[in-house]
């Protein structure tokens, strides 16, 4: 059953009434994550303190890194009177305390329901505090009801590009790559390495690789994002030779940039199949005029070998998926390309884990975040962890599941899980 068929088969009333074990996360969390891919930034969530605390705990537990995140600390009084003043106070406090290179103001359900005017507050701040004229600020509408984490992430990417990228003379060899929430820091690094191996200059928006890939920095401050793309470089994002979007969620933002700056755009839904990665490599050859480095030629042959070695275990397997849209698209394509079948593919907008449990019959594997670990236990199947958050496995900042390298990881990782499960069944039946 495909994802769309399933969404039709889920009783619409049931899902409208109460959500049980949702795997949706707030858009503000997604927006904050995207902002962390900008060097020296601090995300500022405009709402009551709890939204910020909850988002911070989730991000810390997943990445095992210090996560800078601030709140405008709305309380009973400011909620009634209007929160614009809180935004101004918060930005002032941050500018003084942490010398950020970017403040990203994100709305939450509370302040969006109130109808707070974020952009207006920033304009007022600029007027009242001329000394902050040079401080880059961007505004992101990320109220809870706009969707999930992926949507908030995409809204932040759109705001970054809209606020900072300017048209101008083309910078030879520069490629802007706009990535969505499905790409983990390790994925971003993989893409950067690949593009740079062709002698091109990769400008990633946002660039989580540098910021959250878990590298040791003894003396750095943790009050602002430590790595990531600089605002200075963001301003050049519209002057690349090419603009590439990876993930359907950020395609609208990338298209807007391409149109505004009159640059050519190519887009990928994912980079999780041999075919998709081949397509990207072909383009890189074309853009750079260079041959494919030997390392990637070899890696491609390794992928082909792994496909052969693992196809016994993937073949005819039924897999249930609960992931955000972009990642779901990629993982579904990957699994099909290995001969596995999708029993169910759910996005958080389509349903929750409880519905997944009820709708899916016998499956061989579940792929979701660690939120599905109780569910996997009840269903008696293994859980392969992808997505967000993963709090019961290490190395989430380093995981790579795109490009030839990522394909190898997926083939071996998921393949091993399927193999282990098969051996366990055999042990059981021969015992």
């Amino acid at each position, binding site marked *: 059953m495909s994802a769309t068929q399933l969404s039709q088969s889920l009783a619409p009333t049931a899902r409208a*009434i*109460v*959500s*049980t*074990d*949702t*795997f*949706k*996360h*707030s858009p*503000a*969390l997604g927006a904050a994550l995207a902002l962390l891919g900008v060097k020296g930034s601090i995300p*500022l969530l405009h*709402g*009551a*303190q*709890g*939204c*910020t*605390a*909850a*988002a911070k*705990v*989730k991000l*810390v*537990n997943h990445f*095992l*890194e*210090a996560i800078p*995140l*601030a*709140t*405008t*600390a*709305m*309380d*009973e009084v400011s*909620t009634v009177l209007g929160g614009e003043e*809180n935004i101004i*106070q918060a930005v002032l*406090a*941050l500018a003084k305390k942490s010398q950020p290179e970017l403040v990203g103001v994100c709305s*939450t*359900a*509370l302040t969006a*329901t*109130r109808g707070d005017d974020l952009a207006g507050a920033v304009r007022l701040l600029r007027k009242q505090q001329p000394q902050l004229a040079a401080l880059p600020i961007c505004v992101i509408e990320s*109220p*809870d*009801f706009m969707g999930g984490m992926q949507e908030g992430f995409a809204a932040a990417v759109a705001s970054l590009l809209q606020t900072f990228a300017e048209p101008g003379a083309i910078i030879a060899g520069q490629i802007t790559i706009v990535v969505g929430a499905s790409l983990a820091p390790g994925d971003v690094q993989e893409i950067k390495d690949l593009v740079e191996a062709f002698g091109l200059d990769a400008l990633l928006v946002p660039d989580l690789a540098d910021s959250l890939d878990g590298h*040791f*920095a*003894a003396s*750095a*401050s*943790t009050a602002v994002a430590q790595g990531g793309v600089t605002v200075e470089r963001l301003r050049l994002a519209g002057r690349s030779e090419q603009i590439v979007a990876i993930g359907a969620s950020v395609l609208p933002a990338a298209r807007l940039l391409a149109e505004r700056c009159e640059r050519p755009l190519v887009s990928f839904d994912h980079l999780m199949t041999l075919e998709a990665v081949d397509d990207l490599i072909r383009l890189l050859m074309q853009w750079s005029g260079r041959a494919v480095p030997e390392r990637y030629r070899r890696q491609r042959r390794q992928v082909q070998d792994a496909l052969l070695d693992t196809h016994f275990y993937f073949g005819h397997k039924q897999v249930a998926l609960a992931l955000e849209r972009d990642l779901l698209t990629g993982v579904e394509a990957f699994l099909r390309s290995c001969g596995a079948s999708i029993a169910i593919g759910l996005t958080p907008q389509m349903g929750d884990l*409880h519905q997944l449990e009820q709708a899916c019959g016998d499956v061989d594997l579940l792929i979701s975040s660690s*939120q599905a670990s*109780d569910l996997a236990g009840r269903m008696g199947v293994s859980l392969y962890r992808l997505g967000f958050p993963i*709090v019961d496995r290490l190395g989430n900042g380093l995981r790579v599941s795109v490009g030839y390298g990522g394909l190898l990881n997926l083939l071996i990782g998921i393949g091993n899980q399927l193999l282990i499960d098969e051996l366990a069944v055999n042990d059981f039946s021969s015992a």
Partner: protein
Amino acid sequence: MVHAPSNRELLNEPACPHNHAVHGHGADAGSQAAGQGRKKAANGCKQKALPGEAQGGCAFDGSLITLVPITDVAHLVHGPIACGGHSWGTRGSLSSGPTLHRHGFTTDLSEHDIIFGAETKLRQAISAIALEHAPAAIFVYATCVTALIGEDIEAVCRAMAQELSLPVIPVHSAGYRGSKNFGNRLGGQALLDHVIGTRDADDDLTPSINIIGEYNIAGELWSIELLLRVLGIKIQAKITGDGRYVDIAAAHCADLNVVICSKALLNVARTMEQRYGIPFIEASFYGSANVSQCLRQIVDYLVDAQVVPLSLIDDCEALIESQTARMKRRLAPYRARLEGKKIVLYTGGVKSWSIIAAAQDLGMQIVATSVRKSTADDQARMRDLLGPEGILMEKGGASEILRVIDATGADMLIAGGRNQYTALKAGIPFLHINQERHHPYAGYQGIVEMAKEIDESMHSPVWEQVRRPAPWEVTA
């Protein structure tokens, strides 16, 4: 905001030392009100966040912490996804039976719900949960948005309780009402208003106590339950770790309330004293001296109240002796390696006492501790425990911690999650104390567990490696 008890009513807590500046006395026996810092202390429970800071959880979060450990109840969050999506399956509050509390139910409000009101949706959600999960009760949590748009959850809960013949409990936990601590108290208030006293205990004859303010993180409550069971003392209600709804509903049938390391739930004990004449004691399960004292206090009280025979005092002493001896035996190898080591402690409020107590068992020295969240009384007690050399850190933040570590030549930092990576990246051994931990530290056995972890961390070979200069770094 409808029918919700006002913040001022709830903040008025005579038994809470945070309130001493107002009331001047309290149930806390050891309290010697110190002069300085009183004004600040009077507001200790509210802890208002400031714009531009990273702050702790909201009142909603606090209510969840207090109530979600009730295992056979459905916890329904009436609000948008930030509240409902962040709040389930994350805490290590263990159950010995039902696991309904591990599910996250939410109305996940849409824009349409917010504009047109979501009381109907809430009603349907309650029905759907009742039908599908047969919970012992449903707790309905208000959040910022539902309070702002004026959802009358009190009325909905009342109507649905009647319709379903099921307890449906409103919790007025709108996040913007205050801090996590304040939310703990709101959770306690919901139990007082709607749960405790609504049912009688099946067995009212066995001497019993309630444990208040212990959430059974990593199963900590169980080690204490075991000790009490040996003494023939029943726990009527666990409020709330590993709790069951009907047990809490009959909590007023117990002989004594034991409040564990929890200022926030003192209002539950105090109100129960007024309403039902149940006295309460404050105790801690951390550190052998505290555990022994706690057991003695419980037994002494029950003997005085003539609900248990006098001989229980001897039984209790025998138990304490055998447990302490066993603990000392198991602690000896760790003590040899840890004795005299210096610790900087950076963790909030009540947690500090537990660690200070455990450190004493281990012969370790606390050279500095954070007093940012402490009342004047607490600060005075800290001063006593740490001695004149000890540093009471008024300021927070990574740089301050690092400065103090430098100044004291400390061997280790014990901190909560927030500072964990700051400390780790600075190359200092640390032990992580918070709700997400996997090991129980309570009771006699817990001290051995903590010793093991402190030892592992302190003597781990990784610290040397993360400090080692890279081959390309020139060392002078």
